[in-house]
């Protein structure tokens, strides 16, 4: 766009609105390493004791942060992997393959895409319990993956839709089977989609709170969100510095992923939800 002399108006309004967020971000960082005195906003001395949770248990009743982090990582990455895997095949089938019932699958997909999933949690509990997967990481992984699937399939279908039909036709014409065409010719074209979906579902898993809270309440299946919430709720020790340090620790991967994959993230949210 052409440069405009009155841009500072916009910048001013935007800045005003952004101030609360920025303050939150800034103090999120400051307080985790140097808590100000109560009633003051000026940070005190650098104080790494808020980070003690890294090397000691903040409360003997709680699991170690490292185990929780490990759980979270397993949960998020496995979910992301599953979602991506299933979406990749299903998205292709819906986008490209001529098969009976395709319109119904597509319609169903859209309905599910917009479906209120969290209300189903009681019923999901029953199913998990029936499968013997209640209070296991595997259980919440499967549930989370299934709930994310409609979104994932939708995204992947969108990416497949942009691959020119001619590429596929050329592949068929060159003598390759449909499977081979998919694997060798089409899949490489949707790599950005795969990456984006992988990132998004990882982030979504990393942040998930309600599912682990309800469906995996045990100590050994704690994830960072439930761990952090438990620490915050614990009325024996309110220490915002500690919370914020844990929060920092929790959000570092998110920030890193954001910085590295900014483009893909913006794309998927823009492109993935288009009609």
């Amino acid at each position, binding site marked *: 766009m052409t440069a405009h002399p009155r841009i500072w108006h916009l910048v001013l309004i935007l800045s005003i609105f952004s101030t609360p967020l920025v303050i939150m971000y800034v103090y999120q960082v400051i307080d985790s390493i140097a808590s100000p005195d109560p009633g003051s906003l000026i940070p005190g001395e650098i104080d790494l004791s808020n980070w003690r949770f890294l090397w000691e248990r903040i409360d003997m009743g709680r699991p170690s942060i490292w185990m929780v982090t490990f759980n979270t990582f397993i949960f998020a990455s496995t979910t992301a992997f599953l979602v991506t895997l299933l979406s990749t095949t299903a998205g292709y089938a819906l986008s490209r393959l001529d098969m009976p019932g395709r319109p119904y699958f597509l319609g169903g997909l859209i309905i599910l895409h917009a479906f209120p999933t969290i209300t189903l949690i009681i019923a999901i509990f029953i199913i998990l319990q029936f499968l013997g997967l209640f209070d296991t990481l595997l259980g919440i992984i499967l549930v989370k993956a299934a709930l994310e699937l409609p979104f994932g399939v939708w995204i992947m279908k969108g990416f497949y839709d942009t691959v020119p039909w001619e590429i596929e036709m*050329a592949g068929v014409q*060159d*003598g390759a089977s449909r499977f081979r065409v998919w694997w060798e010719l089409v899949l490489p074209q949707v790599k950005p989609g795969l990456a984006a979906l992988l990132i998004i579902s990882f982030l979504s898993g990393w942040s998930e709170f309600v599912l682990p809270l309800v469906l995996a309440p045990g100590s050994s299946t704690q994830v960072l969100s439930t761990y952090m919430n438990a620490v915050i709720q614990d009325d024996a020790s309110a220490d915002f510095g500690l919370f914020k340090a844990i929060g920092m620790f929790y959000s570092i991967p998110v920030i890193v992923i954001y910085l590295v994959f900014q483009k893909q993230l913006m794309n998927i949210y823009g492109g993935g939800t288009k009609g």
Partner: protein
Amino acid sequence: MELRLENFTKRFGDVTVIENMDLTVNSGEMMALLGPSGCGKSTTLFAICGIHKMNGGALYFGDRDVTTVSAQGRSVGVVFQNYALYPHMTAEQNIGFPLKVQRMPKAEIRREVERLADLVQIGNLLDRRPAELSGGQQQRVALARAMIRKPDVLLLDEPLANLDAKLRLEMRSEIRRIQRETGITAILVTHDQVEAMSMCDRIALMRDGKIVQLDTPEQMYRNPQSQFVAGFLGNPPISFLPARADASLTLANGQTIERPPGLEAMGDVVLGIRPEHFGPQHGTGLKGKVVFVEPQGREELVDVRLDGGGDIRSILPAGDPIRPGETVDWGIAPGTILAFGPNGDRL
């Protein structure tokens, strides 16, 4: 290899796009499928290569009935309009892909790829990916890929549509050269009459899913079987003038022209006059006023509005000092008038 389409019918849902079409392409011939947008050219091509199923009729490659053979099983090379190169593969991998799926040994693939690369003259570009190639180079890679399996038939779907004017000129002769050199039977789908005429041995001109005329380019230009064909070919396009035929031809504006020899019909006719056949060099006979002059370098396009109504176009070598507004009295080259009946058929 001869290609024969018999009674070909294609429907999409309820809509019949092509009905009972017959087409024979001789061995080694290059045939154009020419026609306006939506007439069914691509549909025919997709049926021949097996990407679409035929709803009726049969397709033969030589004596082999391939009607129900899958696309993978037919030996057809196709060049798509936007090249359809695999963007993640180098030119070499693109060209070699058809052999790779046949599990041919690497060394052999390499040899074949080089042979084809030489044929299309891109031997030095084999490591590049499509994005690093110019349009013409991509076109060549696509051609090489289509040819590497030594297919029975080569199909080209508007192969030049995405190239700029100069490249189009170049690739036109290039494709023709390669087709001649390999002697492959080829079908070219296009809606550009210049391409069809300049590249092909014969042209099948289609309209609404039917072949309206199948002829050599010269024949089709000189001897169109209908007003539609006459209007479709020729650049600048032919001018049509309605007239009444009796002893002579009386134009709607009242001017008269001599009956061309051989024209027997009487009553309402439409006359077709090509721009190169109307001009001062052809004598006199039609009076009018120049309304528009378009210089085009070596030639000038002149629109003449006849006295009493009716526009007629002329193309003249550049340099004649003609100005809009000038009144003219120009003639028509004898024996060049095409006459059509009210239904559009040639008389």
